[in-house]
């Protein structure tokens, strides 16, 4: 940030606020062609023939491409290679693309795409996850043998004994819905054939390296033959991974075949029809508690509808499994998790990644249990929550970082005046038209990929002869301010002013694969790499100038754009130090690689050190429910999250507010609706994301406990903010009305005249 003003800073803010920032659709290329996807109206069918003749003859059409035109692999996937560039054997959901029409203009491509026809043998569609698992169910992928994508489990302690020790056993079933990321910029990609034979790809995707893997596999060329160029991107939220990469692959394919730049710009209705969604869950949850409010056992079954292709269902459901008891210590846990294929729209990564669903369950279960025991939800949480040195349900001891669960809870209680307001809740009885309620929820969250994958990131710091600095990092700017955070971390660690740092927007050909910018890992992993690169660079500078400063290299420091020797001794400007280096043929260049600390996992028992560190968050919300209409009005929301270290506080706050806003949509009005497997709300008028008037004033409390395992001290904030407001709203609605809402989105109707029994008041 601007250190003197304390105001927000972003390296790209001026460009974005003036309209100068060039997003993919804003880029101009000579002789560019335009591509449009062709869909069929089938939901599940065996393809006999894709009929393209009429489209080929249509005005302006240059070429129609189908699966047969793919020179390399038509099938891809990060886990199971079942996702098609173009549908080949079957249509498996309504968003499957059978062909791509390339034409001189976008309008002509769209017009011709409607002329593509599919001759196919219709198959019965399986649209329910539970049905998909029944014996004899229609198979979405015959070759897979069943509709079961994956399972995970936790076997800890002895749940039978745990339930025996319980004074109360509570059991509920919860359902969550399919929701859309609704990034403001729809998928778009441009493929450009370069004179050296490389295919360049510009696109709206949050995953340049996996995009490159898909493109190179699709084209049948080496990774070095594809260059994916980072381009400003209009939001991702986890959603610009598989589908966005496939759009890039299609544009690149057409560019390669036709030898001209090709743009594939998605319409909103195509985007909603085809792109993957957040998984709908069905969760059966049983919890045993003692009279003194201690959880003795949890048994749960988690069923996730993964839709037509695998995408990252095994990873999403893994996080749900690891975090299936929320931030509570439970000795006896039996969890079975199933990811399932259906003919519904594909489900994949979305901000939270399996945690919003489980937190909706757990954070209501603890309140239900507290009421049964006769203590407040807050007190119940305190008796069970993780503390310093606690052991998680996967057997991981939380001792490598500050366990800040109590700290964030206390911060929210204090800021809201929670206890006093809880006493004023209506519980269905109110003198006015409105019933008032306050509610909260909290979570802990494993940071980064955990035992899901290999976790490392790379940064390059390249100081120029005049002392200006080029910085490149293998993380991607999704809109969250990653470039700014990396620049701030570099300037701070190097002891130089921010003005020296020029973030060089990386391409896949200039910086090593830093993994994907997902899992709230950008700041911790990228920042770790930047910090390590900066330390290496300082070492090089120290060795080069220690003679001049008449001290040992160890004594050299950099601060305030000066390189200093011993206290009170000599000092030289940073620029001078760099000049000295070049004069002595030492290159001020450093490459830092941050490897995620070790994690472990035993798939058989569901035990292990799942994540190398954890973050802690708590959110509360106040609302009213109108007795006649059931209308929910949010009055205010407060969040406290431990972020490790807040690198760019204004942007951290932005993550709080954006995540909370998205969670209100999840709680109250967002839902992908479909009829017979065909989505019916395909644009932003019918798929309603929160507007300014839907939201309350929000308060962000940044808690900082720098993490010893994070070189920059920073942890994560993107997803934690999005994973607990829905259960907080559900809890507040309960306190307002006495009604427990176990399904998302919460649809309130008029309240009965009689308030519910006093028994459920706590």
């Amino acid at each position, binding site marked *: 940030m601007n250190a003197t003003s304390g105001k927000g800073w972003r390296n790209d803010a001026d460009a974005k*606020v003036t309209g100068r920032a060039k997003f993919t659709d804003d880029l101009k290329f000579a002789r560019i062609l335009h591509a449009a996807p062709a869909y069929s109206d089938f939901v599940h069918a065996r393809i006999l023939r894709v009929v393209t003749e009429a489209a080929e003859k249509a005005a302006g059409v240059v070429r129609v491409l189908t699966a047969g035109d793919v020179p390399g692999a038509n099938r891809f996937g990060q886990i199971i290679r079942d996702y098609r560039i173009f549908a080949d054997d079957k249509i498996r959901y309504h968003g499957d693309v059978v062909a791509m029409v390339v034409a001189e203009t976008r309008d002509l491509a769209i017009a011709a795409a409607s002329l593509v026809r599919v001759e196919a043998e219709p198959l019965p569609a399986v649209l329910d996850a539970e049905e998909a698992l029944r014996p004899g169910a229609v198979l979405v992928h015959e070759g897979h043998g069943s509709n079961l994508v994956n399972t995970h489990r936790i076997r800890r302690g002895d749940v039978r004994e745990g339930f025996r020790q319980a004074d109360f056993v509570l059991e509920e079933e919860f359902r969550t819905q399919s929701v859309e990321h609704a990034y403001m910029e729809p998928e778009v990609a441009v493929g450009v054939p370069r004179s050296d034979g490389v295919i360049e790809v510009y696109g709206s995707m949050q995953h340049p390296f996996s995009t490159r893997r898909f493109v190179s596999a699709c084209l049948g060329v080496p990774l070095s033959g594809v260059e994916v160029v980072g381009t400003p991107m209009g939001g991702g939220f986890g959603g610009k991974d598989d589908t966005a990469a496939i759009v890039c692959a299609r544009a690149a394919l057409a560019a390669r075949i036709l030898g001209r730049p090709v743009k594939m710009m998605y319409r*909103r209705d195509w985007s909603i029809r085809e792109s993957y969604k957040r998984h709908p869950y069905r969760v059966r949850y049983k919890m045993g508690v003692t009279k003194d409010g201690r959880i003795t056992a949890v048994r749960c079954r988690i069923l996730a509808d993964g839709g037509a292709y695998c995408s990252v269902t095994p990873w999403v459901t893994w996080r749900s499994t690891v975090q299936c008891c929320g931030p509570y210590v439970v000795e006896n846990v039996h969890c079975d998790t199933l990811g399932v294929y259906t003919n519904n729209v594909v489900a994949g990564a979305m901000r939270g990644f399996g945690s919003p669903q489980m937190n909706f369950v757990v954070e209501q279960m603890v309140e239900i249990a507290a009421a049964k025991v006769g203590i407040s939800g807050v007190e119940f949480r305190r008796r069970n929550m993780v503390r310093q040195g606690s052991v998680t349900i996967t057997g991981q001891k939380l001792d490598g970082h500050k366990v800040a669960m109590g700290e964030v809870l206390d911060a929210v209680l204090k800021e809201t005046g929670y206890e006093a307001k809880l006493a004023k809740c209506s519980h269905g009885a109110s003198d006015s038209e409105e019933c008032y309620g306050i509610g909260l929820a909290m979570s802990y969250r494993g940071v980064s990929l955990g035992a899901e994958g290999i976790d490392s990131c790379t940064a390059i710091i390249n100081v120029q002869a005049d002392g200006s600095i080029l910085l490149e990092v293998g993380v991607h700017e999704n809109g969250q301010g990653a470039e700014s955070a990396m620049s701030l971390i570099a300037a701070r660690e190097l002891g130089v002013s921010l003005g020296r740092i020029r973030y060089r927007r990386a391409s896949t050909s200039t910086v090593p694969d830093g993994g994907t910018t997902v899992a709230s890992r950008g700041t911790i992993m990228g920042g770790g790499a930047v910090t390590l690169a900066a330390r290496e660079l300082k070492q090089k500078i120290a060795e080069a100038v220690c003679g001049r400063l008449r001290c040992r290299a160890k004594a050299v420091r950099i601060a305030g754009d000066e390189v200093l020797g011993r206290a009170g001794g000599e000092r030289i400007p940073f620029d001078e130090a760099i000049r000295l280096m070049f004069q002595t043929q030492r290159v001020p260049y450093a490459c830092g690689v941050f490897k995620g600390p070790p994690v472990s996992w035993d798939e058989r028992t569901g035990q292990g050190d799942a994540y190398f560190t954890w973050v802690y968050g708590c959110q509360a919300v106040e609302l009213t429910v109108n007795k006649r209409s059931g209308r929910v009005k949010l009055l205010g929301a407060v969040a406290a999250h431990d972020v490790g270290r807040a690198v760019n506080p204004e942007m951290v706050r932005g993550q709080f507010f954006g995540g909370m*806003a998205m969670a209100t949509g999840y709680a109250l009005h967002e839902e992908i609706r479909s009829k017979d497997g065909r989505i019916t709300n395909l644009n932003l*008028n019918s798929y309603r994301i929160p507007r300014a*008037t839907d939201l309350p004033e929000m308060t962000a409390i940044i808690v900082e406990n720098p993490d010893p395992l994070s070189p920059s001290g920073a942890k994560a904030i993107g997803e934690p903010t999005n994973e607990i407001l829905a259960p907080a709203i559900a809890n507040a609605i309960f306190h307002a009305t006495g009604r427990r809402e176990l399904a998302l989105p919460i649809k309130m109707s008029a309240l009965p005249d009689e308030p519910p029994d006093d028994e459920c008041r706590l």
Partner: protein
Amino acid sequence: MKLHINGRDLEIADAAGERRLIEFLREDLDLTGAKNACDIGACGACTILVDDAPLKICIKRVKDVVGHRVLTIEGMAAPDGTLHPLQRAFVERGAIQCGFCTPGMVLVAHAFLLKNPRPTRDQIRKAINGNLCRCTGYQQIIDAIEEASVHYRGAEAPAQAAEPAHV
């Protein structure tokens, strides 16, 4: 036909009148600040100002703005690049994340503040209600608009957009 865009007059052929306005601005004039995001006027990413009133142009034709004063985001900053106070507030208050809604959001806020330079936060919420943002939760956008409102007060210095940096 004459268009008046960002303080400059532009002569266009009559045939261009039937073209989609957003396409004309983006393709012919390279004014790409107005974004295509829904094509049905549901999200506001394509907002420009016509005679100081917001207009969602994805559903409009060029002829719809002939003879009117058009301001796009490219016309907000001073010719030397100095940000308009409203733009500066967006930058400093952290109101920008992905930036895709930002041009429309700045313009709709500008139109609102010209009419109401002493707004309440609720009035600001209502004013930007037709413009969707998925990143920010609007909180810092509202902070920015509230902060910038002081620059719109007083008859002596209405914060009109400067003459254009470029068309």
